């Protein structure tokens, strides 16, 4: 029979070891970001892969989230006669929270999984070792372009998602809830503050960094064959989603705590 304390102890030690490995990996990655050579062509390629090709899924998510948000807020606020607050709540909810978080979660699934699977396959087929023998640092060649691309393109994606999401709310407001178009737009822009958008974009940059970091970390540490790559992919997605939710709270505290 296993000692419960021993199980807890083993789990805790394993957790600390993972934190240590991740810290070392992050340190190496950040050191590689500021040391040449820089692979700008690879950065641009990754921006296309991570940013441009994610536009449809992020755009669709934002459009329907904005639409549902407007509908739900209208139904809820109608109970105490505050229907006119719909545009205000939709724009603040989207720019501060739903835009960055939902885009982050979608990218965590799409991009985090793709990075972990690609780098994991490279690891188990000795391509990472081959890079080293060809005098190329895998952190500079593989990790840095992905980190930079995800950190730069995620805020751009979120900005686009914010606009599409507000448009979704607007379309429902005008066509389904009988709002006046000019009034809806005026309320939206009058209520919106720079800090609402800024905080969302800062969150997006943090989420993008974490998604790429988790994808690269789990890909680099995958073991075995196809099963190991599959496990690395799952771990990358799960850990990036958890970190997105935790960091979302921390950034919100940093921006809005009194």
């Amino acid at each position: 029979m296993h000692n419960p304390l021993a199980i807890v102890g083993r789990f805790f030690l394993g957790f600390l070891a993972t934190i240590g490995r991740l810290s070392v990996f992050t340190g190496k990655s950040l050191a590689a970001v500021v040391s040449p050579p820089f692979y700008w062509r690879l950065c641009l390629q990754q921006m296309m892969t991570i940013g441009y090709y994610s536009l449809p899924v992020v755009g669709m998510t934002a459009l329907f989230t904005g639409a549902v948000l407007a509908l739900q807020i209208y139904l809820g606020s109608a109970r105490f006669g505050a229907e006119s607050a719909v545009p205000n709540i939709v724009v603040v909810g989207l720019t501060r929270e739903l835009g960055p978080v939902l885009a982050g979660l979608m990218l965590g699934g799409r991009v985090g999984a793709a990075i972990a699977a690609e780098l994991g396959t490279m690891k188990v087929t000795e391509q990472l070792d081959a890079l080293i023998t060809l005098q190329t640092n895998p952190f500079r060649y593989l990790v840095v372009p992905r980190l930079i691309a995800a950190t730069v393109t995620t805020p751009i994606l979120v900005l686009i998602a914010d606009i599409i999401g507000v448009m979704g709310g607007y379309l429902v407001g005008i066509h389904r809830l009988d709002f006046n178009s000019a009034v809806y737009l005026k309320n939206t822009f009058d209520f919106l503050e720079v800090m609402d958008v800024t905080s969302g974009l800062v969150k997006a940059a943090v989420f993008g960094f974490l998604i790429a970091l988790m994808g690269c970390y789990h890909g680099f540490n995958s073991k075995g064959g196809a099963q190991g790559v599959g496990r690395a992919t799952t771990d990358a997605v799960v850990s990036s989603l958890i970190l997105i939710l935790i960091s979302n709270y921390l950034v919100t505290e940093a921006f809005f705590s009194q």
Partner: protein
Amino acid sequence: MTFPQRNLPNDTHAMNETPRLELTDVHKSFGTKVVLNGLNLSLAKGESVVVIGGSGTGKSVMLKCILGLLRPDRGSIRIDGEETVGLRGAARERILTKVGMLFQSAALFDSLSVWENVAFGLIEGAGMAREQARIIALDKLAKVGLDEDMANGDPSALSGGMRKRVGLARAIATEPDIIFFDEPTTGLDPIMGDVINNLITECVRDLGATTLTITHDMSSARTIADRVAMLYGGQIIWAGGVDEIDHCDNPFVDQFIHGREEGPFALEVT
């Protein structure tokens, strides 16, 4: 099981000049599993040494320690007299400019075309312009029997033998002083295996490079090697000229080269 350390007679010829590659008392363990247990091996300039041994005897670990992909627990690994254990960053990359490697699976980069794979070390490692590197890559690919149409293709479309040829072209593209071959004929049919062996011999002769090959394949060992060393129990237990291997009195070597079930390896298993 441990084996007494001994000065291998064929290692002494390298003593007159600095060996191209020298491993001294190299140890490497993973947890409680001892893989390399005081390994000694020396390669003279221009020499071709093949290390044979069963699966899991530490041949790949030895290569990874030499390349700096793994760090030995203790011992010395010298390339041209320079200690390489513990080298990092730019110092490690400088040592690796002397080295080429053909991986068991060829380890071609899927995201690049065939010629870009061959030219990778020239472009990224040596900083050569792409056009110039492409000309050299096409020349190396021609040496291993692949034409320009193949060069522009995708590595994933190649057969196992072709992938090995591309891997060989990549290994010799930078004209390194030392080339490592990890199981160069594993997974190939005997004819393609012979083609690869001959290509290795020709390319290495043209370059004048020192080579270290690890393999199970005795046919490959007899074609490529000047000298054969057997790795067992984390040590080199026998080394000698390729013409001596059939007459050696070491029971492990005798069993291995004849592929017999009966012998000291079988006793260990039971």
